[in-house]
């Protein structure tokens, strides 16, 4: 099938993009001014009691341990070699913790908060936008203005507002972290019941922002489609309204799916600001700390995950587009 061949060709391009991204992921963090080992050693010297020679020995030891004494190209090869074995390296700042463990500890939190938030926001936003477009009048105005307001609000504003009103003033929900002090993550009902209270605030702050943007987009698409010829013709043929709405949905859906794919791929990067505001132990917080500590392996690992997610989501989107819109499928497989 032509479409399969098209996808195969596309896959090669995505592979090339991945290799270039790997190189950039490796080089860019190393352009951050300051040597991570300098930072660690100066931390040690602050306590006093260690002489200059000792510090120098410690410095050299760390440089050797992290492999930073080797030339850049050799470091890259070592990195690729480790990567091939699924090893993301060892964190500098939290030595000797492996990056694999750090990411594995943070990623579930980010996904747990964002995947439901994005899906809920997407579904609710699209339904709200479509209904607003059909009903028009007061319902439209009542739904459209708040949506516009939410979508144009910076994420941290809403996060801080929610935090202040619900967490600080009303004291209904806890204001930071992912679970109560003293508990440790485990698969038990007790832990879940505790974690869920920490979950709601960051969850809703993401949902509301995302919902607003989707509703605004869907509303304008649906209004446009509602005036199209096939809607009028469908009515003239006596089709049920629900049927016609389904036609409209399918056509109005394309840009919305792009939005969904991009958000899901962006999810790996963590809702950085939301996580920081609520001190949520997700990928966003991990990345933020890694950058401030010039922790090359951790930065590299997270940017690699982001790259993979973006490429993967785009590839999926391309397949999905082909399924939804025959015209795209035709042009992709070179029919016309």
């Amino acid at each position, binding site marked *: 099938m032509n479409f399969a061949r098209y996808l195969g060709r596309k896959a090669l391009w995505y592979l090339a993009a991945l290799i270039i991204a790997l190189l950039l992921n490796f080089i860019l963090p190393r352009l951050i001014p300051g040597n991570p080992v300098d930072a660690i050693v100066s931390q040690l010297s602050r306590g006093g009691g260690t002489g200059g020679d000792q510090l120098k020995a410690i410095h050299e030891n760390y440089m050797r341990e992290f492999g930073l004494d080797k030339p850049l190209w050799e470091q890259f090869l070592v990195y690729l070699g480790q990567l091939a074995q699924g090893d993301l390296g060892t964190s500098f700042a939290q030595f000797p913790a492996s990056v694999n463990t750090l990411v594995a500890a943070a990623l579930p939190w980010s996904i747990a908060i964002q995947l439901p938030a994005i899906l809920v926001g997407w579904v609710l936003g699209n339904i709200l936008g479509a209904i607003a477009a059909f009903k028009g009048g007061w319902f439209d105005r009542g739904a459209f203005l708040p949506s516009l307001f939410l979508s144009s609000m910076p994420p941290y504003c809403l996060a801080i507002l929610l935090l202040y009103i619900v967490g600080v003033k009303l004291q209904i929900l806890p204001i930071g972290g992912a679970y109560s002090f003293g508990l440790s993550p485990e698969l038990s009902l007790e832990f879940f019941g505790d974690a869920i209270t920490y979950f709601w605030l960051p969850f809703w702050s993401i949902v509301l922002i995302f919902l607003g943007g989707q509703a605004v987009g869907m509303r304008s698409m649906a209004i446009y489609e509602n005036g*199209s*010829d*096939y809607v*009028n*013709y*469908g*009515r*003239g*043929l*006596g*089709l*049920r309204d629900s*049927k016609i709405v389904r*036609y409209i949905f*399918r*056509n109005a859906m394309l840009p919305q799916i792009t939005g969904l794919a991009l958000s899901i791929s962006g999810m790996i990067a963590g809702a950085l600001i939301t996580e920081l505001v609520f001190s949520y132990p997700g990928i966003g917080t991990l990345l933020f700390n890694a950058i401030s500590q010039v922790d090359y392996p951790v930065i590299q690992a997270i940017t690699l995950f982001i790259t993979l997610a973006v490429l993967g989501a785009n590839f999926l989107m391309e397949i999905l587009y082909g399924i*939804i*819109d*025959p*015209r795209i499928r*035709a042009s992709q497989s070179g029919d016309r």
Partner: protein
Amino acid sequence: MSRLVNAEHLRASYHTPDGREVTAVDGVSVHIDEGEVLGIAGESGSGKSTLGAILSLTARPPLYVDSGSLEIDGQTQALDGSSKIPRTWRGSVVSLLPQGAMNSISPTMRVRDLVVDVMRAHNRSVTKDEALDRARDRLASLDLPTRVLDAYPHQLSGGMKQRTVTIISTLLNPRLLIADEPTSALDVTSQKALIDMLLQMLEQKIMSGVIFITHDLPVLRTVSNRIAVMYAGKIVEVGDAEELTTAPRHPYSAALLSSVLVPEPAYRKMRVYGIPGAPPNLAHPPSGCRFHPRCGLVMDECHTEEPPHVGDQLRFSKCFWALKNPGQSVPLKAVTASSLSETDTVVEDDDDTTSRPDDEPSEVPA
């Protein structure tokens, strides 16, 4: 022949955002006999398509039907919103064949999906295969390839798409088919193919009557039994197609005919006079006869009084001149003569290409 359709006192208006009402169809009655094709002619903005929307029961805001009733086969339906129009009337009693089939099928669905949806919208117990079989039979009986069912709309040519849409519009054997400019976007060969197909369907009694709306008079002459001429929201003349085109009894019909070029030797040296002026803005229609500002035969009473109905239901003219000259046809030159000195070599087609004389833009969609 028995009567198929009586549509009485149709009145509909567009409600503009600034609260005005523009009456696009004003007191129109339409009568069609069994097996007949009624052509409706007129310039852009004369209310033809609005009339089509009312009769096909697809009027929707900003168009509101103010009054009127539709009687088909003895079943009567009020159109003014006082009683709810049953959904299943659309498609099975009256059906719409829309203008420009290009976008009439959702671009993301196959033709067969629409066929199934249409059949099942009227009878839930119809299976997918039964619906498709019916469409296949229909296509085969009209010598069209059945593979169009598997196509997406973008894979069909313009002419094929229009014929496919025609098949879908008539799947449920509607009593009345309202064809709104079905040939306007087609080349001449496809126009002929479509018209032949419509006439063939009428012969096979797939539908019992057709209202054919177009601004293309030569097409109307070949397809219709009778022609109704619309001007500024009213029907000004109705008559047998041949008779109306050769011996019009309303000055506007005559003017419309004189602005059509026909590629025949006799027309070689003829002058195309066109119609001076432009159609009125329906937000402020002229008093009396709405054509009087452009009419060459205008009389005093035309300015103030509503023109009389001269003739019967199936053949009439609404004109003071026709009242005073019974049985006579309007002399073509007399219609436009008065204003020829100002606009000497007017050659315009019967579509509205000139700008409106008043500054106010028209609020009425064509």
